């Protein structure tokens, strides 16, 4: 089945938005502790801004998200999307959020730059963060 690129871009935009929204909730719920740890607060806020900027890029990409030989990459992205949707709520610690956000940013960068191997690595990192095994 051919990839619906425009829909893929919308799904990615929504996924990154959902992650950013969840980070917003985490920051809000833990703001008392985070206000005493400005380094991590700043890091979370900065990472969330980066994730939002990727979300915005995906929303504006439409079907221009395509790049060569991308079938397998988008399959992996779709796997990552499903796993994130199921497990996002389980991240309840600042250090886990920071490392998860770094993987998500890496995924965003790889998709935008059309770096296939980067997509595979970043998606694997995301799946691994939730202890989900990857189908080859």
């Amino acid at each position: 089945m051919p990839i619906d690129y425009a829909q893929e871009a919308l799904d990615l935009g929504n996924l990154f938005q959902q992650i950013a929204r969840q980070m917003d909730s985490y920051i809000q719920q833990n703001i008392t502790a985070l206000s005493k740890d400005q380094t991590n607060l700043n890091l979370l806020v900065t990472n969330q801004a980066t994730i939002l900027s990727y979300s915005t890029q995906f929303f504006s990409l439409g079907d221009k998200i395509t790049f060569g030989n991308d079938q397998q990459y988008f399959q992996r992205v779709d796997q990552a999307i499903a796993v994130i949707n199921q497990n996002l709520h389980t991240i309840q610690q600042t250090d886990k959020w920071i490392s998860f956000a770094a993987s998500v940013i890496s995924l965003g960068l790889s998709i935008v730059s059309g770096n296939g191997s980067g997509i595979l690595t970043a998606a694997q990192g995301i799946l691994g963060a939730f202890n989900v095994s990857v189908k080859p």
Partner: protein
Amino acid sequence: MKSSLLCSCLILQALLYTACADLKGINKFAGSSCKTIAQRFPYGYSDYCFDSCYIYDNSTNPEHYPCDCKTAAAYDTAVIRESGKLGSYFTALAKLSGSADVIKVDTLGAVVTAGTYGSLTISSTEASVASGVATGIQDLLTVNFKSKHLTANLQTYGNAVDSSLAAYIRHLEALDGQTTNLIIYLNTRLIAYRAVTAPGPERFSVVAVYNQKMRELTGRQAGFKNLISQIQLIRSGYHQLVINAGDIRSKNLKQELLAFANNISYLSN
């Protein structure tokens, strides 16, 4: 003679009503759809550009002006043109299916009645013939010709219209997503700012401005989501219409389309 003419008129009216009722669902649905599609964007790409350009602006360069929104305005124009084509299609569908044409036929029948029109006199025989011609025209336009025309039109252009509706919804969803990102961005910054800033007039002013902008964006976004819901209803209704293109006078289709039209009107109000 008079009662016979009256009876003929009643039968003609009944025929007209029946023919009209057959396509009433399509007509009302198409009418609601073209009104919805023709309505102005509650929040366009230009609006988004003028909001996002300074909210996301992190530049320290004083010469950098981030709010050049010419491209966004051009994009708005392109999307509006796209929606304009869809609007025209549904307007045509409404005309082909609808009351406007039936009224014309009805008016033609009504005009040609026995009596004196200035220097011209229409005899009852003439009126009766005209009435028959009107029935023929009505039959041609409203029943046979229009049904075939609509069916052929739906079968020929159904996929293209559906694809165009899907693309339009995607445009709107993408813009909605970007607007939501702005709100999330502002909200997180507000939380972080408030947590590390001492209470006082400065904090009050900043928080007030943030809240005002978020409220404004949320309000615009509500209107936008409403428009998306209406277009989605149009797409679903049109999908039903295309599926039933071979039987456009079915009662089930009529009921479904009337329900879609009512829901679209409800949301637009």
